[in-house]
Structures are given as C-alpha cells and as structure tokens.
C-alpha cells in the first residue's frame, strides 16, 4: 500500500509558540493531483511548507520512500520537489529568463530542452524573456511561477493558492494548464486552494483541513458530493 510518492504521517508544525499542524497524515500517489482544502488558518500553507522544509516540523515525511524531516528547503528542491509559494516567489527584479534559469538551478548542464518544453506550454514567455518579471501582470507572474517550477522537471509540484489575487478567467486557465501538465507529463501535484470548486474539479483526490487536523479525505468526486463540503466550501 505504500506506493505513494509523498507520505505525511502525524506531522506537526509550529511557528514559535503557535501550534499550527496537529498531526497531519496524507498521501499523494505518483501521477495524481491532490487538493488540500480548508478555511483560513487551517494549516494548508503550513502543510506545504512542512514538505519543502521552510518550517520546523516533526513527524514523518517521506518522498519516494526517503525521509525529508531533516532536510532544508534547498536540499528538498534538489530531490525534485518544486514549491510555488503563496505570492508566487518570482523575482520581480530579475528577467523572465533569469527566473526560469533559477527554476532549474539545481540541474547541471544545458537547460535548453526544458526551456523549449516550457515555452510549448507558455509560448508568450519566450517573447518576453528579457523583460523584468515585475513588469508582468499578476496572472502572467503566476504563470511564470508555474513555468519556473516546471523547468526543474520536478517529480512533485507543491502549488500554494495559485488563484490568490487572480481574475476567475485566469484561475481557470491556470488549472487547465496544471491538469495538462499532469496528464501529458505525468507531473504529480499537491495543490492548496481556497477555491474548492475549481480545486476539486482539477484534482483526483482531496483532503479537508480544519484547525490543523485532517477532518475529511477522499476522492474529489466523493468530496464534491459530500454534504458538509458542499455547505462549507462549495456554497450550495
């Protein structure tokens, strides 16, 4: 049963005295898209940060069978986990090309094949490669963040609130691309999202977090049909 690419077992995390995660357990199968839902302050972002090592955590986190608990963010990235943080983490002072180059920072040698592949999904990036990333619109910056994560050829993509501050049309476009990357490239995705409707449509399974606990888990179809989820997150 332990075929999952990423497994969290009883993971706790805190910021100073504030206890945010109270024993989270979840699994992400290779090749799947998994959504994490929940209200503000439930610990969704912290869950991703626990994986990428940007917060101090305890409990077991295994990636492809390998424990991550003691690794810092740079070491986790080197294992092939790309984290697109809330607020995108793009370098607005650097050019689009430099941002993409940073995405593949841990790769050796030429990254031309990766860039070509990324440009096939985001053709407009190629024309604007010399432009400072800060001059892109919010939607474009989010696309750039996704593209930058993808240049790494990650085995796992951690995506934090991609819809934040974006117009609905752009959010739909973004999720379409995430789904396409998943289907065509076999990219495994763990996505945290406020917009439960979109997230459940684009994912295979999901977890609902409340106050640092997993309160509900299941396939996305099951969750969409669940009464509590419908009332709290889908609004019907």
């Amino acid at each position, binding site marked *: 049963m332990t075929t999952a690419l990423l497994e969290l077992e009883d993971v706790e995390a805190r910021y100073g005295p504030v206890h945010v995660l109270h024993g989270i357990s979840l699994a992400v199968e290779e090749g799947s898209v998994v959504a994490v839902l929940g209200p503000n302050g439930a610990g969704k972002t912290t869950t991703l940060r626990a994986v*990428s090592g*940007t917060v101090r955590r305890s409990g077991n986190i295994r990636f492809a069978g390998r424990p991550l608990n003691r690794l*810092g*963010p*740079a070491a986790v*990235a*080197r294992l092939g986990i*790309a*984290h697109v*943080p809330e*607020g995108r*983490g*793009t*370098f*607005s*002072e*650097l050019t689009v090309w*430099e941002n993409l*180059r*940073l*995405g593949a*920072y*841990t790769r050796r040698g030429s990254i031309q094949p990766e860039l070509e592949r990324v440009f096939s999904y985001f053709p407009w990036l190629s024309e604007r490669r010399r432009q400072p990333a*800060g*001059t892109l*619109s*919010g*939607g474009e910056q989010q696309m750039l963040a996704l593209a*930058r994560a993808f240049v*790494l050829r990650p085995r796992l993509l951690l995506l934090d609130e991609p819809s934040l*501050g*974006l*117009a609905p*049309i*752009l959010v739909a476009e973004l999720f379409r691309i995430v789904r396409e990357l998943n289907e065509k490239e076999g990219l495994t995705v763990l996505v945290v999202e406020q917009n439960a409707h979109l997230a459940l449509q684009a994912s295979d399974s999901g977890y609902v977090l409340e106050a640092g606990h997993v309160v509900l888990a299941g396939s996305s179809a099951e969750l969409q049909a669940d009464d509590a989820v419908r009332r709290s997150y889908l609004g019907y």
Partner: protein
Amino acid sequence: MTPSAAATSGTSAVSSAETSAIAGFRSRGSALDAGTATVVLLLLGAAIFLLIGCLQSARFATLTIEGIALGSVYGSLALALVLVYRATHVINFAQGELAMFTTYIAYELGLHGLSYWVAFALTLVIAFSLGTVLQVTLIRPVQHRSVIAVVIVTVGLFILIDGVVNWIWGGFFKTMHSPFGYASFDVGGVAIPHAYVGMVIVVFASALLVWALFRFTKLGLGMRAAALRPAAAALVGVRVDTMLAIGWGLAAALGAVAGLMAMADPSQLFLSTTLMQPILVYAFAAAVLGGLESPAGALVGGVLIGVSTTLIIGYVPQITSEMQLPFTFVVLLLILLVKPSGLFGRREVRRV
C-alpha cells in the same frame, strides 16, 4: 488607491486589473527615466566641467587625475560595502580593517620573496577565504537575530583585526614599493604618474570581473536571487547561506584590491594599521552617494568623492588636508538629507 495597489489586490475583473497594472508600471517607468536622465545629465555636466578645467590649467589636471586614482580606491572599497549591504542589508564596519589586514599579508608575502603580482593574486585568494570564513564563523550565528547584532559583530571585528595586526606585525611603519614605479607620463605638459593609471586599471578591471560574475554566471544568478529574496531562492534550491559566505569572500577580495591599490599610490609611503580608516569614510560616502544598492554607483561615487576632495583641498586653502575627512562627513550628511536614495539608488518598489 494607487494603480499598483489596485493591481495587487485585484480580485476584480481581468481588464481593470490588467490595465491598472500596466498603468502602474508606466508611471513607475517614466519616473525612473526622468530620475536617471537627471543623474546622467549631472554626471555629463561634471565630466565637461572637469575636461574644460583640465585643458585650461595643468594644476587642475594634475589634481583631477590624482582625484580619479584615489577615488577609484574609495570606489573599490565602496563596492565591497555594497556587495555586503545588498546581500544582508548591513554595513560591514570591518571592511576597511579587513582590507588593511590583507595588505599586511601581501607585505609579508613580499618579504618572503614573492614578486608583487604573485603576492597580489595570492592575497586576493587569501582575502576571499578569510571573508567566507568570517561570515560562517562570526556573522552566520547572529545573522537571523537582528541587524544591530550583525553591526556590533562587525564593529568587534574591526577592533579584533586591529589588535591581531598590531600583535603580529607590531605598530611600526612598514614600507611597500608601488608596483607601478614612480615615473610619469607626460601628456601636454601634465605629469600623469604611472601608478595612478595602474590603480585605475586594476580597480576597474576587478570591478568588471565581479560584474561579469554576477551578470553571466549561474553562481552570480544564485547570489543575486539569494540577496533579493532568500526564502524564494532557497525554494528553487539555491544554498542561501553559501551564497552569503561567497558574497563576503568577494567583498573581502575587492577590499584587498582597495588596500593594495591604496599602497600603490606613490605618496603613500608607509603601511600602517590606520591605512584604511580614512578610506573607509570616503568609501561610506561613495556608497551612499551611489545609492548603497548600486555597484556602478559605488564606483562612480568613489571617483566623484575622490575628485571633489582633491580639487577642494587644492583650491580652497581654508580646507587643509586635516579638514578633508570632516568635509567628507558634511558631504555624506548633505546626501542623506537631500537625496537619501543616492544617484543610482531606487526607491523600494514591491508588488506582492
């Protein structure tokens, strides 16, 4: 609500968010251009003034050339300050003393029979290693505490280095010969010492190398990313701590260039532990004038400070060389009052 604020908070419709973002960018772009244009015009005006002065008077030309040579030394140390400041937002008060220390190392290598340029290269390597080791052992443990903690450590380092150098080499003056000799070129009746030409070339060549490292290499990109947004840089696999240590190493190497070139000045007869103390003050002024964040600004600022102080001492008899440092402080104060972002500094623009 400002346009950029509208863009960041924009959960509104696509069109309005997009257009306001573009409007925000445009207004920012044009403001930047106007500022840059003024600075370029000012510098151009200063250059023309100096050129006319040099053509009119041999004395003016001599002073200007001396100012440029001394200014490039200030600029080199200012560049070291800027490198550290960009990476950690802290002024390294020990930067000058570190440069003095490495100059003593070059002196010692010379005593052991190494030729000047071999000793020069070896000193840069030693300075780089020293910078990284100091960052790892002294700065890293306190760097996440507070800015003031780091500042205090650099002040302590200043005193420590002073003590160590006095302990090893004693307080007596040492002599080092200028590697460029003491002859001069004669250009239309104006004597240009070889040493001044050499100082300027060495400083600008080393600055160019550092610039190329930052601009064209993967390591340089990683260092820029680590300085701009450490958390985001770590997420893409940049080893931020390593980058900071390398940054300190590079700064120490640039400081070593400044120290050695200060000694290459034919009028600098003795090597003493106070060699870099006045130069550090000029370098502060140069870095602030250049905008603290701008490497090019640090070099230009260094040359401007060098030229203006030598000209003023040369032409205003009331300001003697004893008054040179206080005068520089006045300049520093004026910059901070009138244009705190300096010539090439930019106001913090951040879009979340």
